[in-house]
């Protein structure tokens, strides 16, 4: 059913319809509305779940870890500093292969402190083993949560899934969303059943120590599962499309790429602004398109290469940066595209929108202008020169 609804409310609604048994989170802007809604639902008995108000994100993640290990579907959400504070647990949850679902309301990280949107936070855990999905719109955020549970809880997967949605832009943006009904959700997502749990009738030991004789193989199996996900995720997207009649998820999505010889590569809500810019550029006769990274881990190397093998130039739009290195999307993308050898397009890397610096259509045009110029690996767009001067 179509609704005009705030992103956070929409996510809370879909999470509720996924029937988690335990919800635990710690407040941080701009994630708060999601968990506040869930708290209200529990208070009103609309949602039969244990809502655990913890004392830090480290414990929020640990509570859902414990609940999930008890065989109960769990949910948490965080952002920015919260994600950094729970880093150790985030890695641990993946290593323990517990299919927790977490929403990250993407936000800048300290120092300096800044509550606005970018995507630096999620990058800090891109090695952790979580499946990392990125929503472009509120609709996608909703649909990805549904897919996240189904994907993570697949007995052949058993990995946690993070749905990234840009803070404020999507969490606080109100949009028209086709909300899956409870019936649809129940039909799509079966209750969580597993034997991998703490059960007094079948007592297992979880979270053991693995010495050098065993560790390598155990870690390699996580990587192996990610490799398998490169098949499963597109399958899931096409099934989803069949069931719900909407395109959502998958590894990548493309926009006007059929005949493109120039392309943007990006993820999240900025793709909308890029689409707008592309339409304008197309009107001027530029053959430009977009490859949207819908799933960042596993990294969709083959899909990306296939989508870009015919373009001449590409610009990667990163809303984060590996300081002293490059934008993470840029690095992964160029690394992957290098497999094209001599056929690799000329790719430049741009960093935009850190700390909520507004990304306008003009920003995208600025990137486009530079696409054909000197190749750059990590150029900031939109710097105010007067602020760069030494102040003391």
């Amino acid at each position, binding site marked *: 059913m179509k609704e005009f609804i705030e992103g956070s409310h929409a996510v809370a609604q879909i999470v509720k319809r996924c029937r988690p048994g335990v919800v635990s989170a710690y407040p941080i802007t701009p994630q708060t509305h999601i968990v506040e809604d869930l708290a209200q639902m529990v208070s009103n008995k609309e949602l039969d779940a244990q809502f655990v108000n913890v004392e830090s994100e480290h414990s929020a993640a640990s509570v859902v870890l414990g609940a999930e290990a008890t065989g109960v579907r769990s949910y948490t959400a965080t952002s920015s500093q919260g994600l950094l504070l729970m880093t150790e647990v985030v890695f641990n949850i993946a290593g323990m292969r517990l299919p927790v679902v977490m929403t990250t309301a993407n936000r800048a990280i300290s120092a300096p402190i800044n509550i606005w949107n970018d995507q630096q936070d999620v990058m800090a855990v891109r090695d952790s083993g979580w499946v990392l999905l990125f929503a472009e719109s509120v609709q996608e955020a909703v649909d990805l949560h549904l897919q996240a549970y189904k994907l993570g809880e697949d007995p052949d997967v058993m990995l946690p899934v993070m749905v990234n949605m*840009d803070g404020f832009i999507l969490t606080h*943006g*109100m*949009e028209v969303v086709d909300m899956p009904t409870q019936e649809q959700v129940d039909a799509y997502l079966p209750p969580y059943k597993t034997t991998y749990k703490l059960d007094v009738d079948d007592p297992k030991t979880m979270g053991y120590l693995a010495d050098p004789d065993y560790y390598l193989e155990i870690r390699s199996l996580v990587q192996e599962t990610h490799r398998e996900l490169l098949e499963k995720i597109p399958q899931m997207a096409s099934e989803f499309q069949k069931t719900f009649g909407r395109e959502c998820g998958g590894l990548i999505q493309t926009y006007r790429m059929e005949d493109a010889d120039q392309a943007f590569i990006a993820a999240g809500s900025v793709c*909308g*602004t890029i689409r707008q810019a592309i339409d304008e550029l197309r009107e001027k006769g530029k053959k430009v398109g977009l490859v949207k990274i819908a799933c960042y881990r596993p990294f969709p190397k083959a899909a990306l290469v296939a989508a870009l093998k015919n373009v001449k130039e590409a610009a990667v739009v990163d809303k984060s940066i590996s300081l002293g290195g490059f934008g993470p999307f840029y690095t992964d993308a160029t690394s992957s595209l290098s497999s094209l050898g001599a056929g690799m397009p000329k790719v430049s890397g741009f960093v935009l929108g850190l700390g909520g610096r507004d*990304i*306008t259509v003009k*920003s995208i045009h600025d990137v486009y202008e530079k696409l054909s110029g000197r190749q750059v690996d990590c150029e900031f767009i939109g710097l105010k020169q007067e602020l760069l001067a030494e102040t003391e």
Partner: protein
Amino acid sequence: MKEIRIHARAGQGAITTAGILGYAYFLKGQYPYAFPHFGAARMGAPMNAFVRIDDKPVRLRSQVYNPDFLIVVDATLMRGFNCYVGFKEDGIAVINEREGMEIPKPQGRQKVFVVPGNKISTDIMGRALLGNTVLLGAYAAATGQLTLEDLANAIRERFGDKGQKIVDMNVEAIKRGYEFIKEKAKS
């Protein structure tokens, strides 16, 4: 695509206002995208909310720099700050009147309507709480974007669970705002 910028102070209900506005467009079958922009400051500090409307889903995620329509919830905001920045040449603004505050002149074909939102609200319920809703009625009349019924429907959907009385007062506020502009147009 139409773009609306709302100026308010944190705590003055700009987001709710943007939400109702968006909802009215939604009920008409359009695709609004409404979103706030906060600073780091608290209750009382200036902030914005934006609404962007199109007949297909809005993808553009940037703030609104060149609004077609302006809604100024609190005229004191115009003290020392130019709410008209980027305002479209043929834009329409609806401003909540504030005693003693002079409203800067618009330029060219821009139209500015000063509406005694708080006064009308006080008329209706004894307090100024409905000021924004009055502005919405005025917005509909001034821009012709929405009918009274569009807005009343939105109010009913959004405030339905708050009780009939709240709905009625809000609908009344909308009507009064709407009529205020219509009256003015006549005069």
